[in-house]
């Protein structure tokens, strides 16, 4: 099979993140502009050189705002990716395609969100419902957690997974957050007893199956492989990139296709591995989108780390934890325990693993998989040192 023209053709060379907290004073635009500039400084590139931008379609700070704040030059590529948390890795992938094809030379992707301070998006009971939501929300299936709980119950019934397995995911994320001084939950441990005595949110999911509600911003800088050699920090090459929107799937309410437990991760993974020289067995460390703990189980199967239905068992014996397990995941604490910024902090942590600067550094890590939201049209990048 011919090599993908995108393979190792671009690299993340700059990363930055704001403080993460329940509440930050600056506006989303200010937070976004600051992290974009800091990421460019991290790369050693002047903001005037930026000529490409990519963000989520739900991003409130648009390209024109970022460009006018940072003093960018003429932009020749800009795009937005839909489907919320499914689009994070795709923003990097679109940047990589832009610089690899010569449409641009310096690309930035960012996410700034004051979710901790703002209202919960699902709390609104007026206005138009998206079309699939018209068949679910009026019946009381209102929040993202309800939608994922529905898949979780079916998954547990079908494969015999248990809440112990979900707890393994939450505890691994918290263990890594406890090692990361910048994580929101750095100072708070999570025991198995605390997990099982926490309140229900949407059975079978409890409080600790849910990500944090955070204010924060994250940015990354992407340039071509040639340019990357001249940058200040070690490049994290985008070895492979893919998006996935499988047949008949819906966003979040993915109940209407033939096999709802085989979600977008499967379609994304097929292309991701097809475009890569390596397979899941070669991945040293992974950052798996974890807005809810069961998304990690579904993703582990979709990306091929274990056979279908066996992700529960894969989490056992601290297999997801740094220093112990075969596949440490979410080594900064992830969405569950570092911050929820639609998975962009998973991307920066993936880069830190390649740079060997993580607070839970996997010794000699050369490859890191980063995934975006499962249960929605999704994306993933495979980073390589």
């Amino acid at each position, binding site marked *: 099979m011919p090599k993908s023209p995108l393979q190792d053709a671009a690299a993340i060379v700059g990363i930055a993140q704001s403080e993460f907290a329940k509440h930050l004073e600056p506006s989303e635009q200010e937070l976004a502009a600051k992290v974009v500039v800091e990421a460019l400084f991290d790369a050693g590139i002047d903001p005037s050189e930026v000529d490409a931008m990519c963000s989520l379609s739900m991003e409130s700070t648009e390209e024109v705002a970022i460009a006018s704040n940072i003093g960018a030059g003429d932009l020749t590529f800009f795009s937005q990716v839909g489907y919320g948390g499914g689009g994070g890795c795709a923003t990097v992938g679109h940047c990589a395609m832009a610089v690899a094809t010569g449409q641009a030379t310096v690309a930035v992707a960012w996410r700034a969100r004051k979710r901790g301070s703002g209202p919960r998006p699902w709390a609104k009971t007026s206005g138009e419902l998206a079309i699939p939501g018209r068949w679910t929300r009026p019946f009381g299936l209102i929040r993202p957690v309800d939608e994922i709980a529905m898949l979780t*119950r079916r998954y547990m019934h079908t494969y015999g997974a248990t809440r112990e397995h979900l707890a393994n995911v939450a505890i691994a994320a918290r263990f890594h957050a406890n090692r990361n001084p910048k994580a929101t939950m750095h100072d708070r441990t999570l025991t198995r007893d605390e997990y099982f005595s926490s309140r229900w949110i949407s059975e079978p999911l409890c409080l600790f199956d849910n990500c944090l509600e955070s204010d924060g911003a994250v940015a990354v800088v992407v340039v071509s492989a040639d340019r990357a050699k001249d940058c200040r920090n070690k490049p994290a090459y985008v070895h492979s990139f893919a998006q996935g929107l499988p047949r008949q799937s819906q966003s979040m309410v993915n109940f209407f296709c033939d096999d709802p437990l085989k979600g977008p991760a499967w379609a994304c993974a097929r292309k991701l591995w097809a475009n890569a020289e390596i397979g899941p067995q070669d991945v040293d460390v992974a950052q798996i989108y974890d807005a809810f703990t069961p998304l990690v189980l579904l993703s582990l199967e979709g990306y091929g780390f274990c056979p279908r239905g066996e992700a529960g068992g894969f989490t056992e014996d601290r297999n997801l934890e740094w220093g112990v397990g075969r596949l440490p995941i979410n080594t900064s604490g992830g969405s569950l325990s570092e911050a929820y910024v639609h998975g962009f902090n998973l991307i920066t942590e993936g880069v830190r693993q390649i740079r060997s600067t993580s607070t839970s550094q996997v010794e000699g890590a050369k490859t890191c998989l980063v995934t975006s939201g499962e249960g929605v049209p999704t994306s993933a990048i495979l980073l390589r040192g």
Partner: protein
Amino acid sequence: MDQSPPARLPDRGPRNQPPPSPVPDRGPLGQPPGSPGPSTDFLVPIVDSENAQFWEGTAIGELRMQSCSNCDRLRFPPRPMCPYCHSTRRSWKVMSGHATIWSFIVAHAPLPPAYAQMSPYNVIIVSLDEDPVLRMVSSLLDHPGGAVNEVNPATIQIGEPVKAVFCEQAGIWFPRFVRA
């Protein structure tokens, strides 16, 4: 943060009073698409030309599914084109209402206030007997006209046979299910 009353046991009495809020100014049937709706306590289905016959059916006690007039395949949610044969000729067929529970949740606060008052309540997904891939989100009731929080969640089982019933809420007839 949590505006709900303390969690209550699921064996309390029925709650089937009409919602305290007035029906929205724009009727849920035939409302103009795209116009921002007034604030309501409950989320109401949005009726458009593609799904109107579904809601007309529930109002007369029929559970209808969209059907391709060319290849006869059923599909849900409704849409203009058949994904199998690409025909846009479409009609509606009346289902038996028999189904099995595919999955379920029990929602607890925090929720929008009207829903928090009913919580914990169940939400189920059923697979229709006519084609198990036809899945619908709904509620399991103890009896026709019952409330969404009467069934003891500990008794709900995936695979249970259920039967459609139709209950009015905020001027809309919702398809819900009782044990068959």
